[in-house]
């Protein structure tokens, strides 16, 4: 297989499936809270929290805190930087898939 060229263009941060999944889900909505992301990604609190923190540190997502029924709720939204990174990563993935077909 000769898809090494495409592979090196993949965003290292998005090579973890939970982080990629979170960005894909957030690209289809204005914002999602932690519980919703956890349900959809079928992840544990600890793992998802760690992965979202990495995305937040890379400024791929914006976080806002709210109180619902006196409980703190974190809402996550895709940032402009995150959207660009996701697009670039998906283009690279497409290139990998195309090269694998040859």
């Amino acid at each position, binding site marked *: *297989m000769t*898809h090494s060229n495409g*592979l090196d263009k993949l965003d290292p941060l998005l*090579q973890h*499936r939970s982080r*990629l*999944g979170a960005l*894909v*889900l957030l690209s*289809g*909505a*204005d*914002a*999602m*809270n*932690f*519980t*919703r*992301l956890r*349900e*959809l*990604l*079928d992840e544990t609190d600890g793992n998802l929290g760690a992965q979202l923190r990495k995305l937040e540190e890379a400024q791929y997502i914006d976080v806002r805190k709210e109180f*619902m029924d006196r409980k703190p*709720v974190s*809402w996550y939204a895709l940032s402009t930087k995150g959207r660009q990174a996701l697009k670039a990563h998906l283009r690279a*993935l497409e290139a*990998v898939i195309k090269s*694998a077909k040859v």
Partner: protein
Amino acid sequence: MTESHQLQDDLRFVRNAVHRRDSSSKTPPAIYYVIAVYVLIGYAMIDVVPKYCGLFFFIGGILVGVIGAQIGRRAAKQTGEEDAAKSRTEGLHWGGGIILAVISTAALAVVMPPLRSTLGSQVLVVMIGIVYFLGGVHFERHFLWLGPVLIAGGVLVGFVPHYGWTMLGAIIALGLVVPTFFPARDRNAVSSEVR
């Protein structure tokens, strides 16, 4: 696991997450209950106090829109997902579609005097039936059959001598409420949950 296998596995994981999102995004049932009450009262008024039904539909329509938006916002908070673009699309479909149907019927009534009677209401109901059907195409599947029921009802109500509108209102109200008690069958649930 090779890199390509790892990639495939990751893409499956993402696809399943997106599928779970798509199959769990439904309109809150409370919105249908509000519309059902509005339709039931409004259609019964055509039979009982036709003089006031126009006013009821006008004021009630605005109230239903406001209450529906409020329920939608609250449901979004509870579900944990905010999607203004989706809300705008649904609002434009239902609000815009029904307002256009009313304007079209009123415009037709200007040039076609017979439409200034109950016949105009029948034409309006047929047009709203088309809006319902298109709602089934784009949003909720049960509108696919509720739309044609409304269209047929709009035509047939002219042949019912007594309380035809009340009966049609009851059928539509049931058509709105009953499907909320049965979760929609997702034909792709098993096949598309790729393992």
